[in-house]
């Protein structure tokens, strides 16, 4: 079973690498942020898998922190960096 967990985690990390293309190419800041959001979820999933694979329950706490920070990051992005009333036509 350890091989299954680590293999799935490795596969998720490979999809993460593929998703980096969207971060590089945009075109809007929201697209890059969505890719980062997907990375957050992928990281949570692979951390949970690694916690099970290597018998390290602490990694679940790391995943919990990741999930919390992902929520805060995206809300902060929309409310602070990508709002309508600041850079209305600058970064569209």
């Amino acid at each position: 079973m350890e091989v299954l967990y680590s293999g799935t985690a490795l596969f998720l990390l490979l999809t993460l690498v593929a998703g980096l293309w969207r971060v590089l190419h945009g075109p809007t800041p929201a697209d890059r942020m969505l890719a980062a959001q997907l990375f957050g979820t992928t990281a949570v999933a692979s951390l949970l898998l690694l916690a099970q694979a290597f018998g390290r329950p602490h990694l679940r706490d790391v995943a919990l922190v990741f999930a919390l920070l992902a929520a805060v990051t995206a809300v902060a992005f929309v409310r602070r960096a990508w709002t309508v009333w600041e850079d209305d036509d600058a970064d569209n």
Partner: protein
Amino acid sequence: MQITDFLTLLLLFAGAGFFLAGTVGLLRFPDVYTRLHALTKADNVGLGLVVAGLVLQAESWPAMGKLLLIWLLVILASASVAHLVARTALRKGIRPWKK
């Protein structure tokens, strides 16, 4: 191989498939709204299936509760992020994609 191990294998494969579909959608879909659609599927269903597979193997009830809590948190985050990003994109005048 026990029946729970087999179920875990199935759920993990299905979850990984949803993550792959979400990534492919994020790369291939034409605008921010359709990409949001792909992202939330990977968030909710992909992580949900992975968590469901791991819950079957968890060593104690608190560990199961923590796994489900992480999933709920991610669902909450992705739902609010989808709404916020879509509303801001509309207000910025990004037109939804039409064929």
